């Protein structure tokens, strides 16, 4: 029993680092993901995550496979794309989803192109699907730093941010700085995607945010309990995912996201706001 659940992490330092990284990511991504869901901005998250790719690719060209170089590139390009996509949906007849879909396709193709120009297939796979087992002390510091920053900023702007999520018109009329809080939140999303991207790659970075968040939405009915539960689900996904990938020799990123997916599936069926209970209520 102990051998199965604990020994791998005692024996291998790279697994311990990976587990630490998952823990830190879960703490940051949990609340940010919940807010993304509540703001109905899942698509925006998708566009942002994909937009990380060309940025990370440029960082890769300049600095090699280092989280700092790729992370900075990804953050800058991701944030720019989020701003431009938002602007386009406000200024043209295109809806937000259409404008975002357009952007992330362009980003994806551009990113793959840039990486293939310089690097190998392996590099491309690393950037697309992540290398959580290769997390070193520097990346661990970056990830934990981003998480701490995220939690501090969220604590700081919690009240107006929730008001803005629920009723942005109200915040505007009482003179709250809605745009400021919205932009700060976007920065947090981009930062957390950057942090997640080494572990899970650009294609699945959003999974660590969205899956635990939508699962928790089916269980809890307060914003704070959603935050806690979402982080908890993300921790469990990280831990079980790593364990599975070690024992079964599966790739680690997809294993983590799959565990998160299984939690989502269970929640869909069993949770208080899931299918079974809602059916009962309807009868």
């Amino acid at each position: 029993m102990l051998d199965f659940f604990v020994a791998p992490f005692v024996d291998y330092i790279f697994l311990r680092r990976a587990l630490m990284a998952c823990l830190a990511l879960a703490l940051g991504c949990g609340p940010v993901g919940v807010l993304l869901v509540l703001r109905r901005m899942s698509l925006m998250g998708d566009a942002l995550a994909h937009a990380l790719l060309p940025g990370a690719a440029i960082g890769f060209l300049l600095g090699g496979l280092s989280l700092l170089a790729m992370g900075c590139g990804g953050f800058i390009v991701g944030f720019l794309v989020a701003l431009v996509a938002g602007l386009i949906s406000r200024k043209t007849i295109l809806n937000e989803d259409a404008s975002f879909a357009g952007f992330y396709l362009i980003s994806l193709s551009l990113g793959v192109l840039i990486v293939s120009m310089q690097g190998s297939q392996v590099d491309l796979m690393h950037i697309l699907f992540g290398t959580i087992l290769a997390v070193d002390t520097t990346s661990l510091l970056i990830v934990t730093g981003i998480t701490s920053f995220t939690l501090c900023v969220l604590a700081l702007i919690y009240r107006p941010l929730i008001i803005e999520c629920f009723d942005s018109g109200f915040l505007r009329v009482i003179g709250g700085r809605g745009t400021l809080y919205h932009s700060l939140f976007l920065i947090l999303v981009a930062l957390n995607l950057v942090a997640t991207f080494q572990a899970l790659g650009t294609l699945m970075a959003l999974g660590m945010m969205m899956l635990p968040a939508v699962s928790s939405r089916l269980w809890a009915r307060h914003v704070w309990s959603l935050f806690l539960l979402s982080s908890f689900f993300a921790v469990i996904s990280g831990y079980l995912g790593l364990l599975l990938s070690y024992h079964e020799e599966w790739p680690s990123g997809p294993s983590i996201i799959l565990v998160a997916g299984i939690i989502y599936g269970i929640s869909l069926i069993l949770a208080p706001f899931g299918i079974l209970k809602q059916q009962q209520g309807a009868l």
Partner: protein
Amino acid sequence: MHPSSSSLWSRFRKKHPAIIYDAVKPVSIEIQDLTVQYPQNAVISKLSCDFKAPGLWAVAGPNGAGKSTLLKTMLGLQKFASGGIHFHGLCPCDVAYLAQQNQLDRRFPLTVGDTVAMGLFRQVGLFRRYTKEQREKMQIALDEVGLSSFAKVPLQALSGGQFQRVLFARLILQDAPVILLDEPFTGVDGRTLEDLMKLLHQWVKEGRLVVAVLHHIDLVQEYFPHTLLLARHFFKAGLTKDVVTPENMLAAVAASREWEAEVG
């Protein structure tokens, strides 16, 4: 002026330089020759009206007649092409506003208490705890809308009428001298309507100005002493019995038809 209002006013003025404000009481909002233009056409043209506090005004008219646009323009959420909006005796930033209900997510994971407490945001800011006095105020607001024991109830458990009562409790806490309501009674049951109307009349007794956009003309005639009948370039303002007459109603419908024909 409220102590926190002066900085809010300076920020408001920067964003909306066309809205004028002086501190001379009594409170009123004077609208002169107001024209609001959308890219293709004028929504409101040459509207003049004087809303004086205390007062209970209905803004009525056919669909698409510019009623909601008028409220948004008064709030500074919508730019206007010409004319003027002049606030006397109150800062334009001290206006409370209730948007149409369907714009909110009624399954948002907040409790009734959380939602009502938003009305105190200007006073508590980012971090300050709610004082004992403020908590009492919240409870009184809940009592007034008939939801005394609902503070801990999640929003998603409420009916449409109860949800609207919550938003009214939030308005009570905002304690604003002028309150603008956009279709406040849509999707609300009869009893809630009665209760909320009583609340509106109480606000007017307290000296406030209440302006509500309404769709149903029978509601207007039954409860509202003053009416602004609005249909694009056509408008009539004054006592409801003088304004809501068969001739004026026909003229309003004709004006909005004419406009529809023009736009095609």
